[in-house]
C-alpha cells in the first residue's frame, strides 16, 4: 500500500469477503445434497414422466427435495402447473 492509497475510500467489501460469502453459500448447498440417496435423480425423472402423461410441463417446473431431520425424512415435490 502506498502513500496515495490512504486517500481512497475503503467502503466496498474486499474480494476476500466476497469469496467467503460465496463459499459459505455453495458449501452449505452442496452439503445439503451430500446425504441424498442415489435414487433421487431417477425418481425425480420418473415423477416428471408421470405428470407429463397428463399435463404438459417443463423439467424446471418440478422440484423434488428431500429434507432429513433426526428420525423422519420429508419428500417434498413441488409442481408448477401451467394455466
Amino acid at each position, binding site marked *: *500500500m*502506498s*502513500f*496515495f*492509497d490512504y486517500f481512497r475510500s475503503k467502503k466496498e467489501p*474486499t*474480494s*476476500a*469477503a466476497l*469469496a*467467503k460469502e*460465496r*463459499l*459459505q453459500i*455453495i*458449501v452449505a448447498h*452442496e*452439503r445439503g445434497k*451430500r446425504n441424498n440417496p442415489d435414487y433421487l435423480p431417477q425418481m425425480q425423472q420418473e415423477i416428471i414422466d408421470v405428470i407429463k402423461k397428463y399435463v404438459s410441463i417443463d423439467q424446471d417446473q418440478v422440484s423434488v427435495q428431500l429434507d432429513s431431520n433426526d428420525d423422519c425424512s420429508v419428500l417434498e415435490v413441488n409442481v408448477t402447473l401451467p394455466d
Partner: protein
Amino acid sequence: MAKIIVVTSGKGGVGKTTSSAAISTGLALNGFKTVVIDFDVGLRNLDLIMGCERRVVYDFVNVIKQEATLNQALIKDKRTDNLYVLPASQTRDKDALTQEGVEAVLNELSESFDYIICDSPAGIEKGAQMALYFADMAIVTTNPEVSSVRDSDRILGILQSKSRRAERGEAVDEFLLLTRYNPSRVEAGEMLSVSDVEEILAIPLLGVIPESEAVLKASNAGVPVILDSDADAGQAYDDAVQRLLGKELEHRFLQAPKKGFFQRILGGR
C-alpha cells in the same frame, strides 16, 4: 500397527506431493519408521520431489500384481534414516489399483512401519478413492482460494461416507493444512484468511504453510522442503509434524513481515 495418513485435496496443484514429502521426512527425522506411497498412477511425481527418480526399478503396481516384492520396490531415502518411498507406476492406468491389492500392500507395510503416508492424486476418481479408503487420518491440503476450499469440502464428504472407517461407523481424523498462504494479501483483503477457511471447512488446523520461494527451490533440487530449516515453509512444515505428534505449538507466519518506513511511504513490496 502403522498409522495410515492420506494427504488429499480434491483439487490439483495445491501442494499434496510437497506436503507428503515434507511430512514423511519430518516423521522419519523424529525417529519413526515411515513409508510414503505415491498413489498417482500414470503421473508419478513423488520420486522427483524426493530426489530418488533415478533409483526407481519396481513400483506400487508391480507389487500389487506380485511382479516384485515390497523389498524390491521400496526405495530407501539417502538423506533421512527410517524413510522409504514406494513410487507409482508411470505406465499403467489407475484401474491397476485394486482394493484387495492395496489392502495387501498396506497390511504388509503395517507390520514393520510406524507411519504410512499416502500421497493422493487430484480428483475423486479411483486413485484418490484408493488413497483415502484405508486412512486413519486425513490431511486435507487446501489453498486459500475458492475452488480449492470447495473441493476440500467435497473430499471431506467422501472421507465421511466412502472410507473404510466410515463404513465401520467410525470417523477418519481430519486435519486442515493451509498451503501457499500469503499474509500480505490476507491483510489487504485479497485472500481468504486462516480463520475464514477454518470456519467454512470446520476441521482442526494442523498447520499453515506460507507461500515461499523455498518450495520451488526444494523441488528443483529434489530435496523435501522441510530439510531447509532456514526457510519459513520448512519451519512451518516442521511445526505441522510436531503437532501431528501431539505437541501444542502456536501457528507462525500468519502476519506479513513489517515494512520499513520508506517502503510504507513509497509503496512497493
